[in-house]
């Protein structure tokens, strides 16, 4: 075979292609456009939200993360079909998997812009006095924003990649997206009063919300138990575990080594998850002031 002039690694070249494919995906554009609209509303404080940008990171989580499950699932199936069309190629599946994972830089970058915008908005238009309970720092809020928004925007596409590797069937990504949203709703802080520390295992977790106890006109803002700093570490490890498992799908991969790495990541995830539940606030902190606008 004639020599193909070498420029960079194959995974790098392939990752650039997948990044372009991600950027061209219509569903990504739909989500990205809405995220940017939300960013503008947030930064300009057009809705006069008393909690400032505290809850805005749901936009990248839903519009880049949840939709990213579908986007990445589709890109992975497309890559698989191309490889199948070629019959045999020198580049293994794991290289394509890594390149696809590299394309998560797209939602990551956009979510990072949203995160920076949220931090700016938090400082330019600070939350009302009755929003953040005493003892809760700005960095606590930033940590939950980062985990809720930026890491979920990456985690969604990685979940799509993992599903496409192990369950490459039509509709799987859509069903997974619906399940993600439903479980997230069920695990909202206010709906889960008895076991609030334990819901921190979930990928999008509310740390700051309105208490619904006390009836109308009696609502208080509440910070739920859990440690968002450690929770970020937990999310990063879960994302890494998803990637390792996706790479492991390649029958020619070094599965013995990958199994050891996956095992280590599972241990780390469990440890960080338990720590995120038990270190930091162990009970809800209810703001003493009643929310006059709730």
């Amino acid at each position, binding site marked *: 075979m004639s020599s193909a*002039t*070498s420029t960079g690694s194959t995974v790098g070249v392939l990752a650039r*292609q997948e990044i372009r494919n991600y950027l061209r995906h219509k569903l990504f554009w739909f989500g990205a456009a809405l995220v940017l609209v939300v960013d503008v509303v947030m930064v300009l404080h057009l809705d006069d939200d008393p909690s400032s940008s505290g809850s805005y990171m749901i936009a990248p989580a839903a519009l880049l993360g949840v939709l990213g499950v579908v986007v990445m699932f589709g890109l992975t199936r*497309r890559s698989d079909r*191309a490889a*199948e069309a*070629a019959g*045999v*190629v020198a580049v293994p599946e794991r290289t394509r998997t890594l390149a696809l994972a590299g394309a998560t830089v797209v939602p990551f970058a956009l979510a990072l812009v949203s995160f920076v915008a949220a931090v700016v908005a938090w400082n330019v238009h600070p939350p009302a006095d009755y929003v953040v309970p005493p003892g809760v720092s700005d960095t606590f809020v930033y940590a939950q924003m980062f985990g809720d928004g930026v890491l979920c925007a990456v985690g969604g596409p990685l979940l799509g990649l993992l599903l496409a590797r192990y369950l490459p069937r039509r509709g799987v990504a859509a069903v997974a997206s619906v399940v993600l949203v439903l479980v997230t709703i069920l695990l909202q802080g206010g709906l889960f009063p008895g076991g609030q520390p334990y819901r921190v295992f979930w990928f999008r977790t509310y740390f700051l919300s309105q208490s619904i106890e006390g009836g109308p006109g009696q609502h208080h803002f509440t910070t739920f138990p859990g440690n968002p700093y450690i929770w970020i570490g937990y999310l990063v490890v879960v994302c890494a575990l998803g990637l390792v498992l996706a790479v492991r799908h390649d029958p020619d991969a070094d599965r013995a080594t990958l199994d050891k790495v996956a095992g280590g990541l599972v241990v780390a995830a469990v440890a960080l998850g338990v720590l995120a539940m038990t270190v930091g606030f162990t009970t809800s902190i209810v703001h003493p002031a009643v929310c006059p606008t709730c």
Partner: protein
Amino acid sequence: MTTTARLAGAWKTFGGVPAVHPTSIELRPGVVGLLGPNGAGKTTLLRLLSTALAPSGGRIEVTGLDVTASHANRVQARRRIGYCPQEVVYPRGMTAVSFLDYIAVLKEWKNAASRAAEVRRVLDLVHLGDRGAMKVSKLSGGQRRRLAIAQALIGRPDLLILDEPTTGLDPEQRASLRGLLSGLAGTVLTSTHQTEDVSAMCDRVLVIDDGAIRFDGTVPELIATAAGRVHLGPSACAGAVQTWKTGTGLVRSVGGQPAPDSCVVDPSVEDAYLLLRSAGRTRQGVT
């Protein structure tokens, strides 16, 4: 002449059922046709040679590399193999160029400029140079088939394996493909049901039936096996393998006892193939 690929007692079973019996063949530069009925093991044999499928036993070498020995050898061999599967499901939303460009990356063409030039080259080879910007879904069946062949041609492989490449091509496209394949420098192994393709372009022909190679030789040698066994006359020969009325009103009989007033005619590859198949069925006790 150097050997491009070699099967040494290679065999394959699926769930205990043999798909390819222990087979030993050597492939050298030239066009080799693989004939056989549906389910004979053609695709399995091609997939074994392409390294897409691991044999249940035996050894397979491609360009001197024992692909059954190690994964590294398989990867090395894949760099020198072009394979066009029988059925290709294309990725959605891609144009012909973007599809080939992606495949070229998977074949380790890392430099964008040389990759683009290679994609243009193979598109021109299959006469799709003016369809590069079209979505694959908008191409006709024949054009999609040619696109599948184009991807196999990327990188000028030493061993080109084509699984029924002429399916869906019109006579002009088939003739064009013959011209292309016969002009290639390396080894081409192509399975087909079109016996005229074999007689038109193949240096060598393999006939596979029931997972075993029944014939291995040149086209004239294959035709010679039917010499004196094909007749043309007013009526069919008794016991003929196949008979049909020709456009002249006379009946062509392949095999069987010569009918009165019939005369021997020159056999074709198809006649020889039909007789080989008949012999195979007789061997298996099938009538």
